[in-house]
């Protein structure tokens, strides 16, 4: 279709549809922020659907269409170098969004530090475990998709807190498994089988995102457990479902990454590049080595949401109380807040 010839095109390339936050939240936030910061730019959102080869085609097609900036949330950090090279060859600046992209040139990286997400998960888990009288505490680790950059960083962050406990004998990891494609159904089967394997003697399910923790919760329910019987921790993304579990006591926490903040910062960077001013120096607070260069990074803070600070989610405008409390109106926290 013939759009205004002079409108600069910004392509926001999402990694997949399975991590739903990208389509349902990041994209609208980014579009809205761009409308404000660079009203003349045209934002086109596309999705790699979990296929790195497909995302590379998207990058190439974006270049063909005369992209001014590409905002890339790589489908697979390890297979993004070809995309980065195509953009570099065509002199189209790339801003990395959230996901890493290894092996090529990028202008900036706007990211919730995956490592700090893992650290937040690990720290919370360690606190809870230390509070338990039992020793050793039996932990099942339901990890993310093997080989993904994020999975590696979350694990590293978690281990910073977990490893000492393991070494001291306070924690015994009884099951450990990657979850193909983060598929909650697989996480559920795995959690069920872990319970079986240990005769029900599992104290903690440590996930990596709300899909894997949700799978663990469903497993507990299917095995007839009650809220609070077992500790489910290590959520991430603060999905509404996970928050409901938190409210009900099935799950302890979920790391909130305020996507609006991330999208807004990304829009700032992009707008500045579009204006020909390059990456705004004041936003840069670190760097990420992607094996090609040190990419200037905009690291964003993360916050762990538990029952105690559930309202932070509402304050940040991520969800409203009615959204969270739908179907669980009779929980304490909802009775208190959802009027």
């Amino acid at each position, binding site marked *: 279709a013939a759009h205004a010839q002079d409108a600069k095109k910004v392509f926001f390339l999402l990694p997949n549809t*399975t991590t739903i936050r990208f389509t349902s939240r990041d994209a609208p936030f980014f579009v809205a922020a761009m409308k404000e910061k660079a009203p003349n730019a045209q934002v086109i959102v596309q999705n790699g659907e*979990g296929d790195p080869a497909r995302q590379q085609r998207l990058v190439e097609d974006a270049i063909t269409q005369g992209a001014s900036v590409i905002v890339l949330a790589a489908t697979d950090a390890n297979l993004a170098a070809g995309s980065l090279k195509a953009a570099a060859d065509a002199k189209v600046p790339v801003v990395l969004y959230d996901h890493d992209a290894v092996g090529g040139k990028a202008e900036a990286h706007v990211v919730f530090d995956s490592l700090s997400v893992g650290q937040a998960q690990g720290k919370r888990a360690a606190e809870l475990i230390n509070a338990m009288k039992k020793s050793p505490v039996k932990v099942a680790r339901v990890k993310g998709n093997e080989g993904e950059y994020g999975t590696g960083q979350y694990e590293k962050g978690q281990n910073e807190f977990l490893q000492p406990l393991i070494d001291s004998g306070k924690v015994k990891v009884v099951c450990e498994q990657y979850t193909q494609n983060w598929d909650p*159904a697989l996480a559920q*089967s*795995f959690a*069920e089988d872990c319970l079986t394997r240990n005769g029900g003697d599992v104290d903690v399910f440590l996930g990596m995102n709300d899909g894997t923790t949700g799978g663990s919760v*469903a497993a507990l*329910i299917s095995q007839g457990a009650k809220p609070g019987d077992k500790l489910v921790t290590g959520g991430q993304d603060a999905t*509404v479902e996970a928050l409901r579990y938190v409210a009900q006591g099935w799950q302890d926490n979920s790391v909130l990454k305020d996507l609006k903040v991330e999208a807004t910062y990304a829009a700032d960077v992009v707008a500045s590049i579009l204006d020909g001013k390059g990456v705004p120096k004041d936003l840069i607070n670190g760097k990420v080595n992607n094996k090609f260069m040190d990419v200037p990074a905009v690291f964003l803070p993360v916050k762990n949401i538990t029952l105690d600070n559930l309202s932070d989610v509402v304050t940040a405008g991520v969800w409203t109380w009615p959204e969270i409390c739908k179907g669980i109106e009779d929980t304490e926290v909802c009775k208190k807040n959802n009027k």
Partner: protein
Amino acid sequence: MANSAAASGDVKRRTFGEVLNSDMRALPVIIGLVALWVFFALQSNVFLTPQNLSNLLVQSTVVGIMAIGLMFVLLVKEIDLSVAAINGVTSVLMAKLVVDYGVSPWLAVTVAIVTGAAIGSFSARWVTFVGVPSFVVTLGLGLALNGLQLVLLPPTARYGLMGTGIDKIAETKISGITSWAALVIGLVAFAALVLSGIARRKRAGLEASLFSRFVLPLGAAAIFGAIVVTILNAHQGIPVVVLIFAILLGIGGYILKETRFGLYLYAVGNNDEAARRAGVKVARIKMAAFAIAGGIAALAGVLGASRALGVGVFSGGGVGGGTLLLESIAATVIGGVSLFGGRGSIHAALLGALVIGTVQNGLNLMGVENYVRLIVTGLLLVLAVSIDKLIEKAMGQQNF
């Protein structure tokens, strides 16, 4: 007519191979399955616990139920790559009706199943009228349905089903006297069917050995059923999803073995031109097969949603059908259904799903590394089926 020796010897002098070929066609796959069980029992001492066997059964149901439906399509020499997408989109539709519109769970589930069947019959019409291979039609339709699924989902991308009533399906287990009553009802229905057939044969003056036709199969069913019920009761009872699976297997078996429609499926799959010349409405049979696959996929979607306590982008295996699609097809093929039509019986769905479920469950219990899990899964799948084939070969069976 020559070779009367052979012809009249049909009942009395059946070799082991012959027996295998007909009634007990399932035996080799069962041996493969038992081999897997022995392997995992040696590897993990919880494998044979009632709790685990109960889990294993439940974990195999969604794929098993999908496989029942797919069988109908494979029997007529077609394929349906959209079953996983149907599973996903109808479960989301069901959840939407329940959550957003407050429709009663019963009605919502019915709507989902009818929608699934309608989608299936739509693919069939395209296949039979336009002549596009079903592989292409259902591949395309599946993608379109994946898209539709995204449209149906709310901005939160998920409908939670806890407390909606749908969650009760996966939660409920029947135990104690009720569970035994269920078994008895099943056995009585089976016995009544078999006996009515035998009575008819007797009345018609045909041979009808009460032992081989009635006592043996009923006894086997009773013993097998009793074992399963005992094991399940030792955990928490018969999960409703397992009961549904069992009922579907029963109905499916009846349709395939006893009814005219079942016969037509085999006829069309073997030689659709011959079936057409004999007056079988081939297009209609295919349409029914696809509709059944679609409706059953929708039901499996409901059960899956109930188990996962919600629906989302992942329901139905995600874009392209993912593992769910592949496992459903694999289950039927492992169970002995031919991709080239006209061959396979209902136990394929059960056995195939159990083989897949066993390998996954067993490896989870062993707690092996991810790469080991992949390698072993692959090899065990092939080996389980190879045992089947090697036994068949040793028995010198001929297939048509």
